[in-house]
């Protein structure tokens, strides 16, 4: 990934993008404080930091989404000061966000040429647009029907379309904000190929991610931010992983996630049956019938590729979808599970993967979000007094170290990791016996990540039963007593004891897997 030869000697010397002394405060609190970032021609540059480090603000400040308080941005030596994302795009800085900002109900071609459709006599030249779309996407190895609505395609394809659009609009700098968060390994590979290809053509790519493996797989250099300040800029190849994590966290981390700590030596035989037993549980066309027995203090990991039925299983377990096969017994008694309310009544809790749309109620305060499930279970006529609410909120804010520790802040203003902790608090307040966590660490910074894993272990020693879905196998291995591997919406393997290791899980996932449909 050496910088490709630039058109002129001058541009080779000047960096593609030079940001100097960028500062931005919100209501008096500095979100960025004198940050310098240098992006060279043809390089892939990682922008890293914990949530709240200032990455998002940085992107918004250089693309004009927010006005900057101080600092300069030069593009090929010429100062630029876009006042909107649109002006930034015209200047050559394109941003593709994690949530793709395109229109799912329009066709792929319409999305590619939105606002700049080829026209003749004021009419859109559909055929021309489609032809150019196909040609454009061919560069991205994307052979899809450009006349189909964008929403019909996977998130990965939507990302590639968004990137193709940006590149075609003569972007010189591409900012990718968490592009891989919802992609599977195969899709990430495709995206990386496209990124390398674009970098080879001289584009500068600023890559924001939480996946350190990906940082090492693709980036040339790394800039680390912490609490709105620049920590350092390094060559990726010369920066050991521990050193990188140290830069990001500002403290030595015991590397909770990536090592394989001895699990609290396989506990004295889990009670014979398991207190919560799902037998032959399933729903036609949704998840094939499965058995699942959960004893208190056990963590069951659900592994599998995206679309393998992990989330669907979680939704069946929590009564979001009603099973049409099988039965559930709790402590030997048959129990009906027709709605989340039923599940909650029996002491279940569920943190969904879609934290923003299904988890938090953004407008309500942290306190209100924390007491919500408990209050719903008590019923409207048995309100928790304000004093009780304050006490509960304060207890969990302290216990889980939710930041900022202000119970009256709307939860939507918190970082992802703190929102996740507040959601955990919502369920812990109901004193559950089974907690179902769907990708609890997705989109969360390294520090919060480690804390949540520590919390999962701690909850399990306190006697909770946990079902945890995660794409990060090292993570699952570090806490799970048992791992269920899923494929095509059915359980294909159950690994226990010694068999719980990354290699075994990978083998189980890969076994007889039909090639991924593109």
């Amino acid at each position, binding site marked *: 990934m050496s910088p490709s030869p630039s058109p002129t000697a001058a541009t080779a010397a000047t960096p593609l993008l030079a940001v100097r002394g960028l500062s931005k405060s919100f209501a008096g609190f500095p979100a960025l404080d004198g940050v310098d970032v240098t992006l060279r021609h043809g390089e892939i540059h990682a922008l890293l930091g914990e949530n709240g480090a200032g990455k998002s603000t940085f992107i918004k400040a250089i693309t004009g989404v927010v006005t900057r308080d101080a600092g300069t941005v030069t593009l090929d030596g010429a100062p630029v000061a876009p006042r909107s994302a649109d002006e930034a795009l015209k200047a050559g800085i394109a941003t593709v966000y994690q949530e793709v900002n395109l229109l799912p109900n329009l066709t792929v071609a319409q999305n590619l040429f939105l606002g700049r459709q080829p026209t003749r006599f004021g009419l859109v030249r559909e055929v021309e647009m489609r032809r150019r779309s196909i040609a454009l996407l061919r560069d991205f190895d994307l052979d899809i029907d450009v006349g189909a609505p964008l929403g019909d395609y996977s998130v990965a394809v939507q990302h590639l379309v968004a990137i193709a659009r940006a590149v075609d609009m003569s972007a010189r700098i591409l900012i990718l904000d968490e592009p891989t968060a919802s992609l599977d390994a195969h899709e990430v590979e495709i995206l990386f190929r496209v990124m390398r290809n674009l970098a080879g053509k001289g584009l500068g790519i600023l890559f924001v991610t939480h996946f350190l493996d990906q940082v090492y797989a693709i980036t040339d250099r790394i800039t680390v931010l912490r609490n709105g300040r620049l920590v350092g800029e390094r060559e990726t190849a010369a920066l050991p992983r521990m050193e990188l994590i140290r830069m990001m966290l500002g403290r030595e981390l015991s590397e909770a996630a990536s090592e394989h700590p001895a699990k609290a030596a396989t506990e004295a035989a889990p009670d014979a049956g398991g207190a919560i037993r799902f037998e032959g549980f399933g729903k036609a066309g949704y998840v094939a019938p499965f058995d699942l027995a959960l004893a208190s203090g056990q963590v069951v990991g659900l592994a599998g590729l995206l679309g393998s039925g992990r989330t669907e299983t979680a939704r069946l377990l929590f009564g979001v979808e009603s099973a049409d096969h099988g039965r559930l017994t709790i402590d030997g008694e048959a129990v009906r599970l027709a709605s*989340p*309310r039923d599940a909650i009544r029996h002491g279940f809790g569920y943190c969904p993967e879609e934290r923003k*749309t*299904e988890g938090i*109620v953004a*407008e309500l305060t942290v306190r209100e979000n924390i007491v919500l499930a408990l209050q*719903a279970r*008590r019923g*409207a006529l048995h309100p928790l007094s304000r004093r009780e609410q304050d006490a509960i909120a304060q207890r969990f804010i302290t216990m889980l170290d939710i930041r900022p520790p202000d119970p009256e802040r709307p939860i939507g203003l918190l970082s992802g990791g703190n929102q996740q902790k507040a959601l955990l608090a*919502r369920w812990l307040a109901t004193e559950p016996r089974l907690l179902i966590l769907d990708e609890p660490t997705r989109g969360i910074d390294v520090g919060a990540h480690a804390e949540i894993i520590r919390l999962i272990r701690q909850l399990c020693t306190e006697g909770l039963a946990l079902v945890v879905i995660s794409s990060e196998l090292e993570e699952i291995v570090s806490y799970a007593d048992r791992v269920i591997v899923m494929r095509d919406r059915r359980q294909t393997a159950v690994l226990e004891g010694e068999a719980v290791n990354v290699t075994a899980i990978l083998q189980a996932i890969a076994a007889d897997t039909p090639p991924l449909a593109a």
Partner: protein
Amino acid sequence: MRFRLPRKGLPQIAAFVVVLLINFAVSPQFFDIRLQDGRLFGSFIDVFNRGAPVALLSLGMVLVVATRGIDLSVGAVMAIAGAIAATLADTHALPVVLLAALGAGLLCGLWNGILVAVLGIQPIIATLILMVAGRGIAQLITEGRIVTFTSPELARFGGGAILGLPVPVVLTASVLAVAVIAIRGTALGLLIEATGANARASALAGIETRTTTIAVYVWSGFCAALAGIVAAADILGADANNAGLWLELDAILAVVIAGSSLLGGRFSLALAVLGALTIQAMNTGILLAGFRPEFNLVVKAVVVLLVLLAQSPRLSGVAVLLARRPA
């Protein structure tokens, strides 16, 4: 925390006071109050008295809007309840009359609630059905005529007084008080706000979002029926064609003035009533000023625009920026 409520309602209170002061400037007798036959009279009292029906409607509407819904049928439900009350007033005992009229309102609300929460029809369409059909039902009840009645008991709901205060004012204040106690004294308010702000997350947290949604439409129907009774009692009769006509729009406006988002979430019962009173104060002021009727709607629109501009988060953001720039 201690300052939260006043700060939240400040633009609304300010708007109300400004309208009152303008009314005073236009008509120096505006605040004159006299006692006659054991009842207070005067333009200022009139604002509360005339504003009662819309205030009642907004007490219902504000909860519907908080669940991200809207109830266009309240004007028609007023007509139905008024028609029933007027038709029965001279032949049945008062409790029967009230039960029948309020019962009809509850049924109408239940219908709306089922269409929205069970059948999943968009609120604006679901309640449009009853908005159109309701007026027809009211006409069927009155058999197409303007029904008048003489029952003094029912008439008290419009022209009577309790401790000098007009009954509609007392009634509205009581409904507000009961609603505040029932909704903010319990967890209903939180559950409604959560449902409106994020229905999916709320359902996953164990809130009965469907029941909650049905309940707010039933409540809105009840409030509309009460408003219909007051309106019928006021004119000693029911005009199915005109009773409550377009008042649903005033009620929605009152709720918006109260700072509620039509996208659901946070709401304030007291501010909704204040919004309705502000609208009525404007109506009264325009009448007092002797504007030609053609100007009334324009003046009202401008004032409403000003109130909404004062609340616009984007505008206040600009104000903050302007204030900061010199520094």
